[in-house]
């Protein structure tokens, strides 16, 4: 099936496919010539067209500049459905519910502590379980797990005493979604999650020690507490096995319900249910509970990082700059409508005037973190008010994969990747050599290029560029 792209703005393209007659709204991608060529080279364009078939979808289906092939939605896909008569699709959120990133500012100078980075990474590796199925230090009793699912990071701080009240102020939605319904989380999901709080997981999850390399917006950087030469720590993980199981369970329920009604989908992984239906409400409640688990997980990990940092550096203060999800559905107002915004591999980007921002960031914009790859750089951006009209206040979530995992491994084995990173002064700790190869820098698009597109689109502006000093890979 031939899919073309027609340029409709400086960095905006509309996908065209004459063979498709089932599209409810246009599919648009933020890109330049080079990136749109990449988008058209895999199956992500077809997947974004499929998204436009969701009942109740409003405006357009959007692809961010890091868009690449996924399942159901493409990774980097965004869609808003009517909260009145629209649907919710777990395929628009993904299995790793509330996978997201949290940035910690240390206030320490890289010039002073650079020599200790290898010791820090190794101490973190000893303290934080990483990799497949690794359990946490503690198993949560059912009542505690129930509290985590109901209140997320707020429960961890208030009830378990792990963290500071300010950690919640600087977390999206305060790290707690009130719509969470732990009763809609299956026993199996709870079983998988009960000993995974405070674990990093595998795949592309990581913990990175960084140095602020350059500042691009002095006022925003000041508000975020970032200065050139400072050490920062970026956490990337999600809701672990609990979230995966929630998605598995509810896709199954929705798939069965659609088949009973004789509904044929263009892609079964786009199974959906009306938001107002029992299946839709059940999934939304369970998804919010899994999102709370993910915020609680990043909160516990923050405390682990603080413990390790104190053993090395004494009474250092690690401040949460912000914590933001990139696999989630949220009810938000855009263009005078309340919509269910699906973000799969896409980050919320609220502008300076948005009422949900903490006081410190009013007039600045919501912090956005765009990790590149282990060997390149990450960006701190701030959201623009125009983003609501441009992209449902959404932006990219990373550089985006350019090569499949198989292709990346075929190019450079893990030990070669490790040596190349170490030669550049980057300490790497990764339990699996194969996974290290899969996440090699060459597997990703150029993060500077991707960020330039969202800036040109008026979605966000640059605040700071961070370069890696050490990586603990999941």
């Amino acid at each position, binding site marked *: 099936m031939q899919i073309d792209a027609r340029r409709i703005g400086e960095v905006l393209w509309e996908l065209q496919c004459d063979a498709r007659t089932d599209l409810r709204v246009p599919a648009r991608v933020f890109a330049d010539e080079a990136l749109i060529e990449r988008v058209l080279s*895999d199956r992500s364009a077809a997947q974004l067209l499929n998204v436009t078939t969701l009942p109740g979808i409003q405006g357009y289906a959007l692809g961010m500049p890091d868009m690449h092939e996924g399942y159901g939605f493409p990774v980097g896909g965004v869609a808003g459905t009517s909260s009145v008569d629209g649907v919710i699709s777990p395929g628009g959120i993904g299995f790793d519910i509330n996978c997201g990133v949290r940035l910690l500012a240390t206030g320490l100078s890289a010039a002073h502590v650079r020599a200790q980075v290898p010791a820090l990474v190794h101490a973190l590796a000893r303290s934080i379980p990483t990799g497949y199925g690794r359990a946490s230090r503690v198993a949560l009793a059912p009542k505690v797990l129930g509290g985590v699912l109901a209140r997320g990071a707020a429960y961890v701080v208030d009830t378990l005493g792990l963290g500071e009240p300010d950690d919640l102020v600087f977390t999206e939605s305060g790290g707690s979604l009130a719509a969470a319904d732990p009763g809609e989380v299956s026993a199996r999901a709870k079983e998988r999650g009960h000993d995974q709080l405070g674990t990093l997981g595998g795949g592309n999850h990581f913990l990175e020690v960084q140095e602020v390399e350059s500042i691009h917006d002095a006022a925003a950087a000041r508000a975020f507490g970032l200065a050139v030469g400072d050490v920062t720590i970026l956490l990337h993980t999600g809701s672990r096995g609990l979230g995966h199981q929630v*998605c598995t369970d509810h896709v199954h329920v929705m798939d069965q319900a659609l088949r009973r009604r004789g509904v044929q989908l263009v892609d079964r992984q786009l199974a959906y249910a009306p938001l107002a239906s029992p299946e839709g409400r059940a999934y939304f409640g369970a998804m919010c509970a899994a999102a709370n688990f993910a915020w609680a997980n990043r909160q516990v990990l923050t405390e682990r990082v603080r413990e390790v940092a104190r053993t090395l550096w004494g009474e250092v203060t690690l401040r949460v700059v912000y914590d933001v999800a990139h696999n989630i559905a949220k009810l938000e107002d855009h263009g005078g409508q309340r919509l269910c915004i699906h973000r799969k591999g896409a980050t919320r980007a609220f502008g300076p005037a948005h009422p949900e921002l903490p006081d410190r960031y009013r007039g600045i914009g919501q912090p956005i973190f765009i990790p590149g790859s282990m060997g390149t750089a990450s960006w701190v951006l701030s959201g623009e008010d125009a983003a609501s009209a441009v992209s449902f206040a959404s932006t990219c979530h990373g550089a985006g994969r350019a090569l499949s995992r198989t292709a990346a491994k075929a190019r450079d084995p893990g030990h070669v990747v490790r040596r190349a990173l170490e030669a550049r002064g980057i300490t790497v700790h990764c339990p699996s050599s194969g996974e290290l190869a899969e996440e090699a820098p060459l597997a990703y698009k150029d993060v500077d290029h991707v960020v330039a597109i969202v800036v040109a689109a008026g979605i966000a502006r640059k605040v700071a560029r961070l370069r890696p000093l050490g990586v603990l890979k999941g």
Partner: protein
Amino acid sequence: MHRFETHTGEVQIRLAAPDLPGLFVAAAEAFAELVAERVGPERAEPWHVDLREADREALLVRWLDELVYRADRHGEVPRSVQVAIDGDHLAAEVRLGPIVVPRTEVKAATYHGLAVRAAAGQLEATVVVDV
């Protein structure tokens, strides 16, 4: 038979076998290879799996999701598998081994582009798993 195919974001597995039980055995073999670089000795006690689904694609996704659960929760992958399928019902006896050296974390099996089809005298399926 299984082989891993190009997919930018996830892992795509092509399965082929003379019959439906063989296809499910191939899926288990592919899963074990994907998840574990090295597997320990076979456990003495077999794991019995009993599943019922509306169609064979849903049965294949459910089967893989059972293996995902087992790997995530218990750190085990199949070393040998016997599968019997009768209509919409699967009964399997799985001999498991512990994951000694992990390879890739699999989050779930997906329905994306999944179809079990007959081709060249055998059954084939392509399944994408989230990693």
